[in-house]
């Protein structure tokens, strides 16, 4: 059995603000029945543009219902500016905490709130350029990035607890791992200063020479820098690597990861056509 706090139990047994606001100013639906939880949030503003009424309908477990109930209580009386600042951690904290495996319930609340505000303000419902990473639960790279950033997540398992991404077939675990690395690299205090092209090429050369080539040579392979176009690092593989079926993986997981770590997190490695 899950270890729910008394506050979670109480909000589950006596949920506040169940239903739908009539003639809402903002409304949003997140989640899906396939995913196992879904939340429909609606709110109405008063004459001072503060949230006068907020209601929810939730399909999901006890913590999903409690998170929705808590959210509606929290945002009442807030301006949209204030409401926008409510994080999933605030929701969890309001409930005295949620089990790690249930943190995605608080994230769902935060997402619904954000989308309902966007709905009121007429902003695009879909984040531009967002890409589905987890097919099983329909989670985008943006959602994962944000969960990683706001909750300082470090492992795939944590990402699954917060967003559900990776909780199904597991095919996206590598992609999630890359997002984690990318976001955590951004957070490093010594943010890489913008490099000139010459500096960039020089540092790539150095990284290849010092950090990458020795490992490849150990296995009888080698790598050659052909060109750098913007953030695209074009390389050719030589020796044993040229004949190796796994060289794609080596390039992506080892060479690209190293270059991103040492030079710039935006680099993309590309192999010249053979």
């Amino acid at each position, binding site marked *: 059995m899950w270890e729910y706090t008394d506050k979670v139990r109480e909000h589950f*047994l006596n949920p506040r603000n169940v239903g739908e606001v009539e003639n809402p100013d903002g409304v949003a639906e997140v989640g899906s*029945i396939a995913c*196992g*939880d*879904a*939340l429909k949030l609606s709110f109405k503003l008063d004459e001072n543009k503060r949230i006068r009424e907020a209601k929810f309908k939730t399909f999901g*477990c006890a913590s999903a*219902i409690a998170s929705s109930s808590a959210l509606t209580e929290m945002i009442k009386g807030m301006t949209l500016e204030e409401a926008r600042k409510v994080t999933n951690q605030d929701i969890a904290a309001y409930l005295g905490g949620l089990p790690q495996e249930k943190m995605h319930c608080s994230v769902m609340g935060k997402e619904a709130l954000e989308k309902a505000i966007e709905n009121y303000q007429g902003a695009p419902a879909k984040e531009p350029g967002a890409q589905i990473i987890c097919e099983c639960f329909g989670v985008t790279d943006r959602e994962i990035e944000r969960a990683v950033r706001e909750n300082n997540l470090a492992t795939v398992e944590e990402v699954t607890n917060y967003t559900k991404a990776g*909780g*199904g077939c597991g095919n996206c675990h590598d992609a999630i791992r890359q997002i984690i690395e990318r976001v955590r690299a951004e957070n490093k205090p010594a943010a890489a200063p913008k490099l000139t092209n010459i500096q960039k090429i020089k540092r790539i050369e150095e990284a290849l020479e010092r950090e990458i080539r020795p490992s490849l040579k150990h296995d009888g392979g080698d790598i050659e820098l052909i060109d750098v176009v913007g953030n695209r690092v074009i390389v050719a593989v030589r020796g044993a690597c040229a004949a190796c079926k796994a060289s794609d993986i080596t390039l992506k997981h080892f060479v690209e990861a190293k270059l991103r770590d040492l030079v710039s997190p935006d680099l993309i490695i590309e192999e010249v056509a053979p």
Partner: protein
Amino acid sequence: MKTVYLDNNATTQVAPEVLEAMLPYFHDLYGNPSSMHSFGGQVARKIREAREQVAALIGATPDEIIFTSCGTESDNAAIRSSLATYPERRHIVTSRVEHPAVKSLCANLAGQGYRITELPVDKNGILDMEQFAGSLTPDTAVVSLMWANNETGVIFPVEKAAELARERGIPFHTDAVQSTGKIPINLQKSAIDMLSFSGHKLHAPKGIGVLYIRKGTRFSPFLIGGHQEKGRRGGTENTPSIVGLGKACELAARDMDAENTTVKRLRDRLESALLTRIPKCRVNGDIQQRLPNTTNISFEFVEGEGILLLMNEYGICASSGSACTSGSLQPSHVLRAMGVPFTMAHGSIRFSLSIYNTEEEIDFVIEKLPPIIERLRSMSPYWTSVAQACVSA
């Protein structure tokens, strides 16, 4: 608050007679059955008796019974023994709806290079026997199919399947954890080579299991140690539990009729009342080929954990196949294998009864559950006017 326990496929209460039989073996008769003194020797005699009681329940001979620590150990021992005794074979046949004790083991073995065939089931949870026959190859080291499913109670025709395996010289194992004590089993008349079951599902304590190995079946021990269980399973005997299990098997044989009449009647009463009183629900699994004590009902548009926690407020205990309760994020693999739609799978509840349940308890659940479902549906964004219109239509 009184507990209404309808979760007997998870575990059962130790029968009072079983507890009584066990008690002397903790404090008074604590000797080691292997000892060369009559203080220990009297315990060995009692274990022999228990072995006979166990064998009698499943139509085996006492020397075909090995005591283990649980169903999972028995499953692991059986499957690994076949792999060890047929080292040239690299293929295992099983189903998609097995208990994790078999399913996870097979997944693990797949990582070690074994080829696993997981047979599908149809929407009622039934195995296609033709497909089963077609999956058997000269490379197949073992077949492992559950006798009855823990979530739906659906019964596989394991006796028929075992015959097909025997014709091809393939050892056949069945996980009979849910069926033992609930439906008659006679291994003498079957081609099943290995069978696992567990004490705590039939009113014996947790921590005791059985592995049946047919005489003449090749066997390689899982736990290697002393000469206990004729060297087939090392480790000092769990005397109190073995004695308790013997008693429980005797009681199960005695209560087999009640299980299939009284318990079945209560189950059917619960099931039909809920189906009548609650719109948009249905039974998962074949309603004929099924254990007499189990019903798995899906309540559409609500989520199982909420149902369980609201029932918990009344002391009613059951289980769910929903994602939120499974500890993973997807609903039960059994319901998914049956192709139960997500709207149904997340709201599935398993009620599993025992001979200790009463009519009053069943009526209590029939009274309390409809408002619980209604309450959760009123909160559900999917319980829209459309869904309700479908109901009244």
